[in-house]
């Protein structure tokens, strides 16, 4: 929210802002369609911008003609004679059908190719495969190449093609990280595929776009694009998770709460421990994630974790985390435990942990 006041003043003129947004987007709009950082979103942006230009010109001309006619041919006091009763002009009418048809060619033909580009399936040894599973109301990201699972925060290497297999465990959701790629529906009983690629390191925002029930609004996600070396370190840290052997003090006590009968581990998995629940999101590396409860609360700090653990139903009504009331001591210990479960933090992650809007 740094510089919020200045942003607010500028934003009072929506047209100026739209123009600013058209000029390439700026950091204040983390989900802007115009801040495209990969070939997929760039192709979608250029289709959008070409349409806006072409149709904008047509709109100005036609609306201009309407306004001209509406003013020019208004009835003025004293004009009593009836205007000429012109019923039509076949040549003129044929002309406008033809002109519109010609204009349509420019509008119809260019984007036809785009759909085939978007539908390509990336192949080769460098391709990263990720299976995306939508749940009410969080995202599961499986990395079959590396045999681990994470949630709500997808990491991808910069410059690599990523093959997404998108489906759902319950109702229809829709995967959308606009800076990288447009929407793809997550439909139960069906696997949709798309490829994505980010050419610039950063943390990109996204969220579920298909109405999926009570907390559709809070089914958010991040895509972290980091250098291939950083990505590999992040993968390694999932394959060799922190576990619980080294824990002491509050963190150890927190693990005991997590591990207690009828508690967290029934629903959540943390690799390297005996928590193997599969109802809720996988919490391996939760200490390095960027937000709490599918990015409903950002950043992921002790305060937001505490808000969530005090009353998950107040933060996100209707979600599956229905838990007995925890004591202040238990919450403190659980936070210490969760924060101990870290994975590798690239510079992009470190920056976003400080400031959620950092890219």
């Amino acid at each position, binding site marked *: 929210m740094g510089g919020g006041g200045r942003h607010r003043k500028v934003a009072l003129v*929506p047209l100026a802002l739209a123009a600013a947004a058209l000029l390439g987007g700026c950091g204040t*709009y983390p989900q*802007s369609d115009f801040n495209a950082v990969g070939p997929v979103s760039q192709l*979608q942006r250029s289709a959008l911008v070409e349409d806006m230009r072409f149709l904008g010109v047509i709109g100005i001309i036609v609306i201009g003609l309407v306004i001209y006619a509406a003013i020019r041919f208004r*009835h003025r006091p004293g004009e009593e004679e009836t205007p000429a009763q012109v019923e039509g002009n076949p040549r003129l009418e044929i002309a406008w059908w033809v002109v519109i048809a010609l204009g349509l060619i420019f509008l119809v033909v260019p*984007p036809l190719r785009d759909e085939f580009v978007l539908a390509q399936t990336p192949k080769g040894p460098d391709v990263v495969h990720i299976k995306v599973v939508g749940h009410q109301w969080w995202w599961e990201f499986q990395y079959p190449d590396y045999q681990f699972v994470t949630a709500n925060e997808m990491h991808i290497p910069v410059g690599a093609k990523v093959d997404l297999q998108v489906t759902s465990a319950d109702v229809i959701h829709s995967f959308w990280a606009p800076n990288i790629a447009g929407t*793809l529906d997550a439909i139960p*009983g069906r696997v*949709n595929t798309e490829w994505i690629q980010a050419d610039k390191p950063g943390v990109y925002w996204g969220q579920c776009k298909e109405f999926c029930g*009570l907390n559709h609004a809070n089914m958010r996600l991040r895509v972290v694009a980091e250098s291939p070396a950083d990505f590999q370190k992040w993968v390694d840290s999932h394959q060799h998770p922190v576990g619980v052997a080294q824990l002491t003090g509050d963190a150890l006590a927190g693990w005991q709460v997590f591990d207690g009968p009828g508690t967290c581990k029934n629903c959540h998995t943390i690799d390297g421990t005996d928590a193997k629940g599969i109802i809720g999101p996988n919490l391996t590396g939760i200490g390095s994630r960027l937000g709490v409860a599918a990015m409903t609360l950002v950043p992921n700090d002790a305060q937001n974790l505490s808000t969530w653990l005090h009353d998950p139903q107040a933060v996100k009504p209707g979600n599956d985390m229905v838990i007995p009331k925890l004591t202040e001591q238990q919450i403190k210990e659980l936070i210490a435990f969760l924060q101990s479960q870290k994975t590798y933090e690239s510079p992009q992650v470190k920056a976003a942990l400080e400031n959620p809007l950092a890219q």
Partner: protein
Amino acid sequence: MATAERALRLPEVRTAEERGFLSWLMTVDHKRIGVLYLLTSTIMFAAGGVEALLMRTQLIRPDNAFLGPKAYDQVLTMHGTTMIFLAVIPLAAAFFNYFMPIMIGARDVAFPRLNALSYWLYLAGAVILYSSWFLGGAPDAGWFNYVPLSDAFSGPGENFYILGLLLTGFSSIVSAVNFITTIINMRAPGMSLMRMPVFVWGTFLWSALLLFSAPPFSVALILLLLDRIAGTGFFVPAAGGNALMWQHLFWIMGHPEVYILAVPAWGIISEVIPAFARKPLFGYRGAVIALFAITSLSFTVWSHHMFATGMGPVVNDAFMVTTKLISLPTGALVFTWLLTLWGGRIRYTTAMLYAVGFLPVFIVGGLTGLMLATAPADLQLTDTYFVVGHFHYVAVGGILFSMLAAAYYWLPKMTGKLLDERLGKWSFWVTFVGFNLTFFPMHLSGLLGMPRRIYTYSPLLGVDVYNLLSTVGAYVLGVGLLLTIVNVVRSLASGRKAGADPWDARTLEWATPSPVPAYNFRVIPLVRSRDALWYEKHAADGDGRVRPSEEVAGAIHMPGLTYLPALLSLGLLVAAYGVNFKLAWLAALGGLVAFYSIFRQMFEADRGYLLEPRGESE
């Protein structure tokens, strides 16, 4: 014996039709049914408007806690469902009912009793949907009601959605059959098809659209109802069903639906603009052809609502092409209206302000629609506020403005009293400003990444200013619409007399007294031209009065009143509650009442009555 005796009895002669309260329940007069439609749809429109204001209030700032997600989702669902099915379709039906028969020079529709049935079925559907608020909660899966969310993942309100829309769908089909039959068979002598006002063509094509789009949707609703109450799995992937199939069936109705809403609007605009530009519609034939083209094409474009469902590039491209093709006839219509203004002497009454105000906003809505039709762009824009801005430019700026134009144009004919022009002009400007303030910023918040159907959003998205503007605009828009309601009430109480033809207009309805008598025309008129009344006012051999088609002017045979359509609807309403609550006895009781009224109808001969008008000149 008894039958023969009954056949011999002549209908009784009366000098006036019945006007008591009960007669409104039993009427078969197309005009009074039109009034019932108008009143009910206005109330429904107000309900949908309040729901819109509740949503806008929740979204006035990020992380707001005015409505929780539970209430928000119900209000969201009811707003869309109400506006589409309970407000705008019946509002069009109100004007069609009242004016189409008069404009073709008929005394009534072809099947007056079916017409009454249409209204009562619509009312029953509205009662079911709105009673959900008091019987466990309103439906909450959106007006599009996608499965599986609407199947096993939502509350009891969903059954109200299904049963309510089955009844309104039934109502639409009945209306459609009735209007098509009327237009084909009941035109006055000389009213050839190509002399019909474009508004009548609008009625015809609206009916055709409903006739072909309502049945697949009804089928989808019945399958979903069976999934929900009988444990079938048509839409359940785990049971071998297909979750995506709902979307296809829904949009096979849902996209023609857009034109079901728009065609009446275009019909109205094509009447109001010539009346006040004082010129005939420029290129009548082309406009009729364009309307036919749009109606046909509208059945080939539904999957453009589903570009993100993974149908593949060939299917997406095919639907992208058909969708964009629609802009050809639609663009031609815009030129028709533009060239009708061109060279006119435009008189800016309130009706004309709304009609001319319609043009730029409708053009904007059409152009943003073309952007959404570009599949690669749509993958970013879909399900964002850009879409919400787009279709409200079409639905509010386009369709609602035209309905307001119709109200200011035709209400004097219906009530016999003029509306206040000064207050009317205020209403236009407040409505116009409020409308743009509400919906223009939505395009921007959408482009900047705000999804739709969310009850809250993060302040970090940077879209709070746009949402604040939209919310303020929504209240201004509300005030503008309220001004029109005030205007109507004042006009009813103390409006100046309208006279038969207050606008020096062109079509047959202005050749009847205001308000229009029960029989419409003392003698069925003879139509000698398109714009039949204008022709008689200006032709060399015209005397300003529409000619009668026959000399005889005896008593007029009118259909009798009947309670059967209302009773049939009541039976179906009761049966629907029975199904909803799984009470077999209640469903059976409702079914019995419905069957009784159908059988009674089959064996009852309506002798009607003879109306002997007292001292009327026309």
